[in-house]
């Protein structure tokens, strides 16, 4: 059985760039030759169907309801993106009635049964599909499915911005949620996103040592290691349709920052040739 790992991308608030980071990391790893599965676990505000411009036949919602298997919901985009490895996508239904159903109708008992199916699907991804990394792009805040994904993941990647609200909210979530769900060997790390200072005007650019001070302060404040920070780029943040910049615009500073983080996450996994650019 593959020793794959599951990574949950979570944040206290929306708009921190979780989906952008998760999709770009997934694409980057697949480009390196890994077998990656990206699941849109934000059942309350799904976005990957729009991001990838896909309309699958079955959704994660069907899997959770016991109406579909994992094989029914996966969409392989490896060839169309020209990836060396594999990138499989699982989407959440953007239909209003499906969102309403998952939001309102289901009680705790249903949620736990759905989680059981989700865990079985994760197991199948590792055992049958030989996936190296499964990414869960979760909902922000504390909701049933963000909690479920955090619990099911081996790594927890918290994306946040450097703002008092994000810091305070993330601290509270660490205490209320993450600590109680930490299981044997699971790891948490922070990615600081949209960090101010990537100004084209020289004098407004933050120096590297100043950036490190932020990271150290946040580590100390929240108690979780900061793996890296990504500067704020208007052309990425406000792009009408940012799409896999890490493979389509590899020379962009956003892509460079992301690659540094990606390499840190992989660590010393020698099976893959990391891109040192």
């Amino acid at each position, binding site marked *: 059985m593959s020793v794959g790992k599951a990574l949950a991308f979570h944040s206290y608030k929306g708009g921190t760039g979780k989906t952008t980071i998760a999709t770009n990391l997934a694409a980057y790893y697949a480009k390196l030759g890994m077998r990656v599965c990206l699941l849109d676990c934000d059942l309350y505000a799904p976005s990957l169907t729009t991001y990838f411009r896909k309309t699958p036949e079955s959704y994660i919602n069907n899997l959770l309801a016991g109406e579909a298997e994992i094989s029914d919901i996966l969409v392989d985009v490896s060839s169309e993106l020209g990836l060396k490895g594999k990138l499989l996508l699982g989407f959440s239904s953007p239909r209003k009635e499906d969102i309403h159903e998952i939001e309102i109708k289901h009680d*705790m008992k249903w*949620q*736990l049964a759905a*989680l*059981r199916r989700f*865990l079985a699907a994760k*197991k199948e991804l590792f055992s049958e599909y030989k996936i190296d990394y499964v990414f869960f792009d979760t909902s922000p805040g*504390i909701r*049933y499915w963000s*909690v*479920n994904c955090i*619990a*099911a993941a081996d790594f927890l990647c918290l994306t946040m911005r450097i703002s008092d609200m994000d810091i305070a909210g993330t601290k509270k979530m660490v205490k209320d*949620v993450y600590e*109680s*769900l930490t*299981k*044997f060997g699971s790891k948490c790390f922070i990615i600081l996103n949209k960090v101010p200072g990537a100004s084209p005007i020289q004098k407004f650019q933050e120096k590297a040592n100043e950036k490190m001070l932020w990271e150290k302060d946040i580590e100390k404040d929240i108690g979780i290691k900061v793996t890296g920070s990504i500067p704020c780029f208007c052309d990425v943040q406000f792009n009408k349709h940012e799409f896999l910049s890490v493979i389509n615009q590899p020379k962009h500073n956003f892509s460079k920052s992301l690659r540094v983080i990606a390499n840190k996450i992989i660590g010393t996994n020698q099976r893959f040739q990391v891109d040192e650019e």
Partner: protein
Amino acid sequence: MTLGFLTSGFQIPVKKFMAVILLFSPSFAWFYLMNVHVFQYTPGVGPPNPDWVFIGEALYLISFGCSAIIGSIISERVNRKQFLGFWIFFGVLIPLSFAVFEGPMVFLLLSALAGTSFGIGFPSCLAFIADSTAIEERARVSGAAMLIAFVVLILMIGITSQLGLIEALFLIVILRAISFFALLIDPCERAMGKKKTWGAVWTTHGFGLYFLSWIMFMAAGGTSYLVESWLPVSAISEAAESLGLALMYVGVAFAGLISGFVSDRFGRKKAIIFGISALGISYALYGVASSTETYLLTQIFLGASWGIIFVNYFMTVIGDFASTGSRERYYAVGGVVLFLNMALQLSSEVFSLAVYPSVVSSILSIVLFVAVIPLLYAPETLPRDKIRARKFKKYLKKVKKLVEEEETQNHE
């Protein structure tokens, strides 16, 4: 703070919890014990004189109600700890006075003073409980205090019934004096807040709906005293009557505690509706078959109903509504309704109605059904976010357990 499963999840510090118990439980048990002993024994008038007993009891209950309102006004102007100290001291003096002084007029005076000695500080006592508890634990703490009060009451009735009057009164004095320990272990400070006018108390959103329901419950509870055929004494032996009273107190104690848990977990309205339903069940049972067995069952449901309503409505809901700085006023207003029940109870000494039990039970059941209606429109006083937070915590535990089980299976 943990004292086992009873206090799991409590935020109230242990000392504060002990202070609440020591202040409330002995005092509340005292109130009932005084009613039992003073109005069964009438010192100085020879054999029990029903007229004097009636007037004395009426003065006891009326003075309790009036002094509660007066006490709530006075207590806002003085230091709470000192006021509660005076309250306890007053309550210690009164039983001694019954033992020392004799004569019918003195008896009547002391009856009025006895009611006053409890009523004057009771709103402050309840306000102290509300100030000491977070909203999400108020009902459980109140239920625990009620349980202990009635356990003490049952024990004390058992002990004092074997003693002479003087010995019994002496024990009652000691019981009341135990409340002084509350003042030793806690500063009993009043939580500061803006004072509300008496009018503003009445117009607090939702308070009126609960109040209306409370009135109907009291009316239904009190009406049963009026009905002569409600308790066909000839059919019930004295032993069964005593057992019935004990069962009623047991019902109050345990239903009060359990309903406190229900109330903090699922909301006040559910608990109160259960309480009203319990009274309806007790009446329905007795209407169906008037026998010793149904009488005893009725008493349990009756006790359970009172325990649930007193803990959840009087001690908890009023505390939830009462803003800090004006709590005594809310308790005084809520306590006014107790008058209705007391008045009906007293009226049964003078008047009575001979009505078939089945007719009475039908009428009272309808009254109780109507009592539920205002509650359906009343706002839930336990904040929804507290209910959600508790549910979420429970869910987190279940998720963790499920994932750990799956991981263990995978590793095998």
